[in-house]
Structure formats: structure tokens, C-alpha cells
């Protein structure tokens, strides 16, 4: 495989193609008639996924450094370049994104009936934005992708969303923008300070800033800069108490929107911590005050999210709050800064992408049949729709963290990794797993077991082939990552180790980080 990829010079063009191709596809889809739009969009996303698959073999993740780095001057007057690169962490995130997009398109075929070309075009624009965030190596470029992504999501929620969509869309937009604007100022200030330190060289390159981030002048203002980055990412994660936009957005978004929000967008927050906030300012991030605060917030998120999920009458809201709980684990793992902790955090991010994505798809499918998300409106579905019930059970168990399914791997690693460092906090967080079992199993009981006492539930059809095609890839992922996570763990381990060195200030960036051609030698 590697030889084949090398023979077509895969590494030199793939990152650009991954960014540009969905955009071109979006234009084509937007201009095509409604009947064709969804098929075309599916073809584009599927092809995008197949193209991106090569990254698994071609990116050399063994050093934990940035590979496939490409830098093209963009606005030279301001020191801005189009710079992209990928390491093990980005790799898994990019593949998660490209894998989910065809499923999202396929899963929307029945649900979206009006203004279809616009809808699918927005999904494609969103694809570019999400991939861009994960591979941008220039702070300006990163910021552009980070913000541009808001627009398609805003329209997806606002146009194709549920009853309260206008409010949810605005809230989502404003919350996210609030965080990112302060990050914008922080980026600019960092660049200015770096320019003073580095002989007046103004550059927005990630590595350039990393090089000067630990300089003494930066040290004086570092707490403020860290705060700005922290807010931007904490809102996105979302870390308690910045999570209030999430239930609204999740509940009101159309199914594919909820899936993307949960599976990819939330991960950008944790990714931002790992890639930017902490490596830039490890001293601040691991100071006693910040550590205590973040770990406390993460643990509150774990427990609070689970408790609130338990009392939700709406299934989608239940899953939304469960995300708050799961992402709390990821943040805990990131701040543990041990190999297991960070690997666990990344596994939570990936695993949550699979299981919560599948949950939202399942909720969307049952909603299309019954037009309600009230848990109490269901009951006894196991007898009517056995396949649906079986898959829902498996996915719910994965979400709880049953050994053998993917949810277990991540949370278990996080708990092991952080126990030595924050024993009490980890102890409390463990209860989150128990609560997760409680809310999920209870919801499961009320939906698919209990008595089949509502006549409307007796006539709903089971999943059709298209819906199975959406769910089965996710199920395969859930089982594979639960039973044999080693290949994924191997991919992320060097990057995780490198991250840990960065948190201790042990890696001097700039000497070995920038490697323009490094793959598959």
C-alpha cells in the first residue's frame, strides 16, 4: 500500500485535495437538481473518505511529529501562510470526520425533504472546515477554519432544525464566537510578542509561536493568553459551566447536524487543548490553580452531565447531556498528562464519536417514524422493531463503557492514567460510569422493553437497508475499537508522548518538528 501511495506521490497532494474537493463538490451539489443533489453529495463524501484512507498508511506517525508539512505563503505582508500538516492525533480526527460524512449524507436521505441542494452543499462546506481545523498549522488559517465552520452549522440548525431552532442556532453561534474572538486577540498578541523576541519576524506559523511561547516576556502575559485560548476551547468541548448551548443545539439540529456536532465539533475543543492551549502555555496550564480548577470542572461535568441526563424526558437531550459527561473524561485525561491518560482522552474522543453518532442516528430514525422524542411515548419496541432494538442496545452499552466495546477502552485508560495523579477527582469521576449505566439502561428499558402499551408503536416498520448501511459501519467501528484498539493506540501513542514532553517543556520545538517530507521512508 505504501509503495502504491508513494508512486502516485500521495503525500504531496492529499491534504490540499481533502480541503478543496468538498468545496468543489459543494458548488456542484448546490447547482444540481434536488433529486440528484443527495446522490452527488454521497458520492463526493464517499470519495473523500476513500481518498483520506490512504493517510492511514502514508503518514509516518512513529515520531509523533508533524508530517506532510506544506507551507505556501498566503499573505506575506502579515506573515501568514497556508500551512498544513498532520500527526497521529490529527490523523485519527480527520479519518473520523471523513468516515462520518458519507454516513451523515446517507442518513439524511429521508429526513431532509426541502431545499436539499443547499443542505447537502452545507454539509460539504462543513467537511472542509472540520478537516481544516485539524490540519491547519498556521494560526490565521486555523482561526479561519474554526470560524468558517460556524456558518454551515448555523444554517443547518436554523433552517432544517426543530421547533426552537432559531433560538438554538443563534445561541450556538454567539457562544462559539464569544470564545473564539478572545482567542483571536490572544493570537495577535502572541505574534507581536514573538516578533519582538525574534528580530521583528512576524509569523503566524504554529511552530514559530511555539518557539517563542515560553519566552520570559510571554511569561508575564501568559495567564491571560491561556485564559483566552482556554475559553474558546472550553466552550467548544463543552466544559461545565460553558455547556448550556449544547443541549439546545443538539436537540434542535437535524439528525446529521447532531451527529456532526457530537462526533466532530466537540472534539475540536479537546483537540485545541492538546494542540494549542497546553503546548503554548504548559506552565500556566499545569499551575496548581489552573489544574485544580480544570480537573474540578471536568469532574463536575462528568457527574453533573450524567445526573442531568438521567432525568431528561427527551432522548436527544439525554444523549446531549451524556456528551457533557463523556467529554469531561477526555479533559481529565488531557490534564493527567500521562501516556495512558492522554491516549485514553483521545480514545474517548474517537469512541464517543462512534457511539454518540450512532445514538443520534438511531434517535433520528425512530423520530422519522413516530415524530416524537419523548421517552415516555415509547415502550416495548423490542417486539416491533427487533433489529433497531438490538443495535440500540449494543450502542447504548458501548456508550456506557461495557468492556469489549469501544467506550470502555477510552474511559478505562483515562481512569488508570489519572488515578495516580488526581486520586480523589478520579474516584469521583468513576461514579460517572455508574451513573451512565443508570441513565442509559433506564432509558433503554423504557424505550425498547416495558410493555408495548401504545397503539402507535405497534405499526412502526423496522430499519430498512439504507439505515442499516448507515449503522453497520459504526457498529463495526464500535466492536473493532473495543476488542482490538491496538492499531489506533499505536498511531496516537508517539504524538501523545510528544504532547507529554511538551507539557513539561522538554521538547524544544523548531529543531525537529518541522519536517517537510517525512512519510514512508
Amino acid at each position, binding site marked *: 500500500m505504501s509503495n502504491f501511495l508513494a508512486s502516485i506521490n500521495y503525500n504531496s497532494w492529499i491534504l490540499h485535495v481533502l480541503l478543496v474537493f468538498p468545496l468543489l463538490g459543494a458548488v456542484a451539489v448546490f447547482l444540481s437538481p434536488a433529486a440528484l443533489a443527495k446522490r452527488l453529495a454521497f458520492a463526493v463524501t464517499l470519495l473523500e473518505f476513500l481518498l483520506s484512507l490512504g493517510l492511514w498508511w502514508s503518514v509516518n506517525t512513529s515520531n509523533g511529529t508533524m508530517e506532510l508539512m506544506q507551507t505556501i505563503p498566503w*499573505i*506575506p*505582508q*502579515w506573515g501568514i501562510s497556508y500551512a498544513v500538516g498532520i500527526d497521529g492525533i490529527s490523523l485519527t480526527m480527520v479519518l473520523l470526520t471523513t468516515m462520518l460524512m458519507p454516513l451523515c449524507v446517507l442518513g439524511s436521505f429521508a429526513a431532509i425533504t426541502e431545499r436539499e441542494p443547499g443542505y447537502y452543499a452545507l454539509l460539504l462546506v462543513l467537511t472542509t472546515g472540520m478537516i481544516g481545523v485539524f490540519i491547519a498549522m498556521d494560526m*490565521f488559517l486555523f*482561526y*479561519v477554519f474554526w*470560524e*468558517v465552520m460556524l*456558518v454551515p452549522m*448555523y*444554517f443547518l440548525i*436554523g*433552517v432544517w432544525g426543530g421547533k426552537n*431552532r*432559531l433560538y438554538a*442556532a*443563534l445561541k450556538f*453561534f*454567539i457562544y462559539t*464566537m*464569544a470564545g473564539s*474572538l*478572545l482567542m*483571536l*486577540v490572544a493570537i*495577535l*498578541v502572541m*505574534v*507581536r510578542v514573538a516578533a519582538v523576541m525574534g528580530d521583528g519576524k512576524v509569523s503566524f506559523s504554529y511552530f514559530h509561536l511555539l518557539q517563542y511561547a515560553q519566552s520570559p516576556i510571554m511569561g508575564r502575559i501568559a495567564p491571560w493568553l491561556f485564559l483566552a485560548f482556554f475559553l474558546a476551547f472550553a466552550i467548544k468541548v463543552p466544559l461545565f459551566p460553558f455547556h448550556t448551548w449544547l443541549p439546545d443545539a443538539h436537540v434542535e439540529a437535524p439528525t446529521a447536524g447532531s451527529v456532526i456536532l457530537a462526533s466532530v465539533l466537540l472534539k475540536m475543543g479537546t483537540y485545541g487543548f492538546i494542540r494549542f492551549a497546553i503546548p503554548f502555555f504548559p506552565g500556566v496550564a499545569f499551575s496548581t490553580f489552573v489544574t485544580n480548577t480544570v480537573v474540578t470542572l471536568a469532574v463536575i461535568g462528568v457527574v453533573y452531565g450524567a445526573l442531568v441526563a438521567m432525568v431528561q424526558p427527551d432522548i436527544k437531550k439525554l444523549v446531549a447531556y451524556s456528551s457533557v459527561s463523556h467529554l469531561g473524561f477526555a479533559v481529565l485525561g488531557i490534564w493527567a498528562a500521562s501516556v495512558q491518560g492522554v491516549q485514553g482522552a483521545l480514545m474517548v474522543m474517537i469512541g464517543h464519536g462512534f457511539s454518540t453518532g450512532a445514538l443520534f442516528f438511531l434517535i433520528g430514525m425512530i423520530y422519522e417514524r413516530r415524530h416524537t422524542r419523548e421517552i415516555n411515548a415509547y415502550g416495548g419496541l423490542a417486539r416491533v422493531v427487533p433489529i433497531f432494538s438490538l443495535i440500540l442496545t449494543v450502542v447504548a452499552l458501548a456508550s456506557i463503557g461495557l468492556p469489549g466495546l469501544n467506550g470502555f477502552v477510552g474511559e478505562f485508560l483515562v481512569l488508570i492514567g489519572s488515578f495516580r495523579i488526581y486520586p480523589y477527582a478520579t474516584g469521583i469521576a468513576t461514579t460517572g460510569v455508574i451513573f451512565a449505566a443508570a441513565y442509559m439502561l433506564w432509558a433503554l428499558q423504557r424505550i425498547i422493553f416495558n410493555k408495548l402499551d401504545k397503539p402507535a408503536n405497534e405499526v412502526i416498520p423496522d430499519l430498512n437497508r439504507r439505515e442499516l448501511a448507515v449503522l453497520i459501519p459504526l457498529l463495526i467501528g464500535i466492536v473493532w475499537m473495543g476488542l482490538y484498539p491496538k492499531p489506533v493506540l499505536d498511531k496516537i501513542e508517539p504524538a501523545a508522548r510528544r504532547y507529554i514532553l511538551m507539557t513539561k517543556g522538554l521538547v524544544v520545538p523548531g529543531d525537529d518538528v518541522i519536517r517537510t517530507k517525512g512519510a514512508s521512508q
Partner: protein
Amino acid sequence: MTGLDLLTPSGLMVAMLPELVVTLAAVIVLLINAWRHQTAADSRFAGMVSLAGLVAALAVLGALWRGGAAPLGAPNMIALDGYRFGAQLLILGASIGTVLLSLDYLERESLIAPEYYSLLLMATSGMMFLAGAEDLIVLFLGLEVMSVPVYVLAAFNRKSAVSAEAGLKYFLVGALASAFLLYGIALTYGATGSTALTVVGQRIAAQGIGTMSGLGLALMLIGLGFKVASVPFHMWAPDVYDGAPTPVTAYMATGVKAAGFLALVRVLMVGFGSAVDTWQPIIGVLAAASMILGNLVALAQRSIKRMLAYSSVAHAGYLLAAVWSGSQAGASATMLYLAAYVLTTLATFGILAVLGRGGERDVTLDSIAGLAQRRPAIAAALTICMFSLLGFPGTFGFIGKWAILSSITAEHHQFLAVVLVLTSLVSAGYYLPVIRSLYMRPPLNAEIHDGVILPGAARLTVALGVILLLVLGILPRLAIDRADSGARSFAGTALDRAAQARR
């Protein structure tokens, strides 16, 4: 044609050629009007002649710019540098856009009076003098030549009471502002013995800023503050913007504001550069107040025209923040932001003029609901304009805002930068509802969007504006180059030396 001796009449004439061409066009249009001023065709003909005049001025400007015209020896009366050329490009662009928007608008509203165009041209020449003035007397003359025609234009719709009110209000406030400016000039002359900006700059650098020159500066700031509608001199803006015919509103929001700001930059950089410590706090307070007040009050508006009026106050605040930084980067950012603002505002008002069709119905968030279904292209264009005003990545507005933020943070003083981004966030609260109405709400009734069609010339303006917004939002190198080279005109001024020393 590189060196022009500005002390000789012929040199001065060549230097002022763009202004002269516009003035000449104004006179020609006026003459044509004397014979032909009755039918719609006459009005359109006058419009076409004005357009030709403006394009000719643009060509002359291009020749001067490309030829690298520069003064031999001391500058006199009128500046001859990149910053003036850039300023005039903006002003001519705003005027051409306004003429294109007016062609069909005047016919629709049956405002058949071709004098409209000659007034517009006179105002344009005034703006060009104002933005290029190297002498305070020229500055004042430019301001008056600009203002008087705009007073008339604001009241141009004789059948509308609000238009008359707008004209009267603008006239009274504007006259007061002129008085302030003139008094400020007089005091400055008294303190320094000259009205030439360069000489004023030298004297102030030598003797320091005293009570008299300080007072002069303050009064001039008030005068220009009125023109650019910065807080606390903004009270006239909402009523005037709302009442004036929509293309005139576009003209006031773009041309007047651009000319005012570019003149302000020149006065502060060249004339009072050494007194930067005196004016920086004042400008900073005005900037913060304009950003905060403009954005907060805009939130409460239902009428989109009034909302844009308050948002223009907020944009004045952003621009003042760029002026505050008092460096070449700040001058460049002012120019760049103005370019983005001019493009966006022209396109926005072009669309609003169509939405308010037939007797200038009030365009509100409710009345545009559901437009995207009926007129997807217009809705998309307005959406892009809103994102550009919001300063969202991917649009030219973002590049402008980035330039401003960058020039502020370069001074290692973050307060204004933080105010700017926080108030930008507030502005999302009123720009996004416009988009929300367009795409996410059903129309009030089935017929409400009948007849919303952009006529040819306006369509051209809007389309060109929106395309430029997107292209320059992604590939801004050329625009940045122009703005930067314009700002380098201020290299070596007292202020520039002060800015270097601060580093």
C-alpha cells in the same frame, strides 16, 4: 512625470487633475440640466454623463498613481502621495457605486431632477479635496464643498416629510460641525502661524503642544467627529440615514465617512504627529464609546436602515481604534477597513433600496422574512454583506478587522482590542437576525416579495461588490499592498518617528 513642483500653478493643476475632472463633470452635468431636465430619459442621461466623468477621473488618478507622482520639494496645498491616491480611489468608487444605484431608484421613486447628479459630483470633488488636503484651508473648503450638496441630497425627496427632516437635521448639525472645525483651524493657525499641515507639524514638534494648539486640535476633532458620526457626535445619524433616499444614505455612509476618516488620519499623522500622547487617549475614549454605544443601540432596532445607522456608528468606532494606534500600520488599517466598509455598505444599501421599493417602505426584519425562497441570489448577497460587516473570516470585512486588531496589538496595548472583539460579538446579535429572517422564517404573506428585482445597474454594483468582498477576503494581498504603500507616505513624519521610538 514623477516630480511635480506644487509651488507653480501648472504643477498644482496637474496634481489636482482628478478633482478638476470631477468638478468639470459637475459643471457639464449642470449645463446639460439647464436644457434637459424633464423626462426620465434626461435624468438617466445626466447619470451616464456623471458616470463618464467619474470614470475619466479614475483614469487620471490611475495615471498619476502609476506614474509615481510626487512633490518636488515641500508639499503645498494638496498632498501628492499614495495615501491620497488610495483615498481618492475609495471616494470615486463610492461615487460610481452611488450613481449606479441611483439610476433606477430615481425613476422608481419618480424623483426626476437631474440636478441630483451634479450635486453628487460636487460632493465627490469636495470629498477628494478633503481627503487629500495638505493645508487646513483646503481641508475646510473640501469639507464645505462636500457637505452642502449632501445636505440637499438628503432632503432630495420633496414628497417625503422624513427626507425633509433628514436634510434639515443634517444641515443644522453639519453647520455646527463646520463652525467647530473652522474655529479649530483658526486656533491652530494662531498657535503655529501656518495652515500648511507639514509646517504645523514641524512647529508643534518644535514648540510642543500648548493650550491654544491643543484647543485647536480638540475643536477639529469635534468637527470631523460629527462628519464621521462617532459618539458623542452621532445623534444625527439614525434620523438622517433613515430619512434620506437610500442611495444617498449609502453615499453618506461610504463617501462622507471615508473622506472624513482619511482627512482625520492625515491631520493627526502629519499635523499633530508629535502630540500623539495628547490625542491618543481622546481618540481611544471616542473609539471605545462609539463601539460600545453603536453596537448596543443597534441591537434594539427593528428597521434595518436604522440598525445600519447605529452599526455605522460602531464602525466609526472600529476605525477610530485604527487611528488610535497612530502608526503606519494604523493608517494602512484605516484605509483597508474603509475599502471593505465601502464595498459592503454600497452592496447592502443597493439591496435595501430594492427591498424598500415603491415609496420607501420601511424594511424591517419581518418584511424580509423568507426572501431566500423567492430571491435566493439577493438573499445570498445580503447574507455575505452581513458576514462582512460582522467581520467574519472569508470576507473582506474580516481582513479589515484583522488589520485594525493587528495595528492595535502592535502598540502592546490590548484594551481597545478586547473592546473591539467583544463589541463585534454584540454585533452578531443584530447582523445574524437579518440572515435568520432571510433564510429561517416564513414570509409574512405570499405577495410580500413580489417585485423585489434588482434593476440592471444596481445588480451590477451589488454583484461586483459582493464578488470583490469574497475575492479580497481570500486573496487580499493586492489590497494590503496598496494600503501599505499609501501609509508609507507618512514615513518620516514626527508621528512615525514617535511610533518607532515606542518600539
